[in-house]
C-alpha cells in the first residue's frame, strides 16, 4: 500500500504539485490522467525519490520515506519504474538490460565483472517471457523497435519483483496499435504477479480502457479520483481546462457510456443467472 499525504513540489516559483493525497491499494491498476505539465511525472518521481518533494509524506508498505541511502535502495527494490523513453542501455543486450532490474540484490563487484547468479538470469528470462520477448534476449537493445524496447522496459521492471510499478507515459512515443499491445502486456503481467500499477497517460481513451481507477491531475492538483465509468464530460473539462474540442468530449462520453452499458449488461446477466 502506498499512502501519499499532502505531497507538494515546487520548482522555484512554479508549483508542480500542491497538496496531493492519494493511496494505492495492492494489485490495483491506477491511471493518472492529465495534460502535459500537470505534474504527473513529478508525482511518480517523488514516490521513488528520483525527485525530492518539497513537502508531504509518502508511506510505502508502512515505512515512511527517508533519504537514508540504504532505506532508499530498499524502497526502490519494491517500487519499479517504466519510462517514456524506455531508458534502456542501448549498447547492452536485452538480457543484461533486464538484469539491471536485479541489481539492487546483486554484488556490485561480481555484477560489474559481468557475473550473475543463475537464479537471477532465470528470473530475467522469465520476465522476458511474460512480455513475449525472450527470443530477443541476446539482441542489442538498440536493434529493437520502440514497442519492443518498451516491453523490455516492462520486463526490467518486473525483474525487480516489485510490489508497485510506476509507469511514466509508457506509450507516449508509440503508435496506437503498439501502445495497446504494450499496455496489455503491462496490465497482464502485473495482474499475474499482483503488482499495483500507477500509470501516467495523456490519452483519455487508453485511460478509460485500461484503468481500474482514474486519478485526474490538473495544474498539480487532483481533480478526480474514481472509477473510469465516472469520467464524464465535466470531469474531462476539469482535467483539461480550456479543452473545447467537442469530438474529444463526445468520444469520451461514448466510451464511458459503452463501458457503463457493458458493465450494466454484465450485472444484468449475473442477475439473470442468479435468478435462474
Amino acid at each position, binding site marked *: 500500500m502506498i499512502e501519499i499525504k499532502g505531497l507538494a513540489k515546487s520548482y522555484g516559483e512554479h508549483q508542480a504539485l500542491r497538496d496531493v493525497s492519494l493511496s494505492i491499494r495492492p494489485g490495483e491498476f491506477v491511471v493518472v490522467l492529465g495534460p502535459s505539465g500537470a505534474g504527473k511525472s513529478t508525482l511518480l518521481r517523488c514516490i521513488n525519490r*528520483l525527485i525530492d518533494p518539497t513537502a508531504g509524506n509518502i508511506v510505502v508498505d508502512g515505512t515512511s520515506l527517508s533519504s537514508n541511502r540504504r532505506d532508499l535502495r530498499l524502497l526502490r527494490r519494491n517500487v519499479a519504474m517504466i*519510462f517514456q523513453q524506455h531508458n*534502456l*542501455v542501448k549498447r547492452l543486450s536485452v538480457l543484461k538490460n533486464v538484469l539491471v*532490474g536485479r*541489481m539492487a540484490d546483486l554484488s556490485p563487484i561480481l*555484477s560489474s565483472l559481468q557475473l550473475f547468479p543463475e537464479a537471477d538470469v532465470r528470473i530475467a528470462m522469465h520476465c522476458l517471457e511474460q512480455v513475449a520477448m525472450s527470443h530477443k534476449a541476446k539482441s542489442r537493445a538498440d536493434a529493437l523497435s520502440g514497442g519492443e524496447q518498451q516491453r523490455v522496459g516492462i520486463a526490467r521492471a518486473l525483474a*525487480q519483483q516489485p510490489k508497485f510499478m510506476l509507469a511514466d507515459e509508457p506509450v507516449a512515443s508509440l503508435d496506437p496499435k503498439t501502445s495497446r499491445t504494450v499496455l496489455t502486456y503491462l496490465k497482464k503481467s502485473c495482474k499475474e504477479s499482483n503488482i499495483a500499477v500507477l500509470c501516467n497517460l495523456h490519452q483519455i481513451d487508453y485511460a478509460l480502457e485500461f484503468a481500474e481507477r482514474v486519478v485526474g491531475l490538473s495544474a498539480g492538483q487532483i481533480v478526480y479520483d474514481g472509477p473510469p465509468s465516472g469520467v464524464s464530460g465535466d470531469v474531462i473539462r476539469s482535467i483539461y481546462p480550456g479543452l473545447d474540442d467537442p469530438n474529444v468530449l463526445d468520444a469520451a462520453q461514448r466510451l464511458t457510456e459503452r463501458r457503463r452499458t457493458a458493465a450494466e449488461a454484465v450485472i444484468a446477466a449475473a442477475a439473470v443467472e442468479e435468478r435462474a
Partner: protein
Amino acid sequence: MSLQFVVNKPRGPLGWWILAPILGLSAAVLWWSAQGTHLSITGFIDGLPWIADFISRMLPPNFAFMQKLVKPAVETVQIALWGTLLGIVLALPVCFFAARNLSPYAWVFHGLRQVLNVMRGINEIILALIFVAAVGLGPFAGVLAIALHGAGMLGKFFAEAIEEIDEGPLDALRAAGAGTLQRIVFGVLPQVLPTWIGVVLYRFETNIRVSTVLGMVGAGGIGFELISSMKLFAYEDTAACVIVILVLVLATDLVSSKLRAMIR
C-alpha cells in the same frame, strides 16, 4: 534568373555598421602581429633559393643510414605506447569526478578541471625537459612527459564524453536501486566506450608525432638522430630521418583510422 540576398540584418541598433569596428579591429591586430613576427613576402621569396639549396643537400637521402634508425624508430613507438597507456591510467579515475553530471560537488568538478587544464597546458617538450632533469636522459623521461600531458587531454575528453551521455538509463538504474559502481559499469561505460576508444586512438597518433621530436631534448626516440644529423651537416641522413618519421606517422594514422571505423 534574378537573385535575392537572403541574410538577416544583424540585430541591434547599428545594423550592418556593427561590422565596421569588428573588421577594423581585426585588421589592426593582424597588422600589429605582422610587425611583431617580421612577416615579409620579399623575405620569403629571397629565402626560396636557400630552401632549394637545403633540399638539394638532403638529396639523395642516405638510405644506408636507415639501418641505424630502426632501433630509435621502434623506441619512438614504445614511448608513445607507454605514454598513452599511463595517460589513460592517470585519467580514468579522475574523469568521472571531472564530469559535471556525475561529480558529487561543484567544487570537485571545477577543481579537477583546473588540474587537468594545468597538466594539458604545459607542452610535452617542456615536461620532457623537466623529467630529463629528474630521471636522466633517455626514453623514460619521454614516457613520463607524454603520460602527464596526455592525462590532462584524456581526462578532459573522457569527462566531456560522460557529460554527453543520455541520462535516462542512469535514472532507470537509480530507480532499480543500483549502486554507484553498477551505475557506472552498466549506465555510463557502455555509452562512452566508443567515444573513449576513438579519443585514445587519436591520442596515440598525436603521441607518435610528439615522440618523434622528444629526442631533441634528450628524451629518447628518433628525434635525437634527426637533430644530431643536422648539427653534423649530414643532410642526407636528415632526409632519411624525415622519411622514417613520415612512414611512422602515416602508418599510425592508417591503422588508427581503420580501428576507429571498426567500432561505432
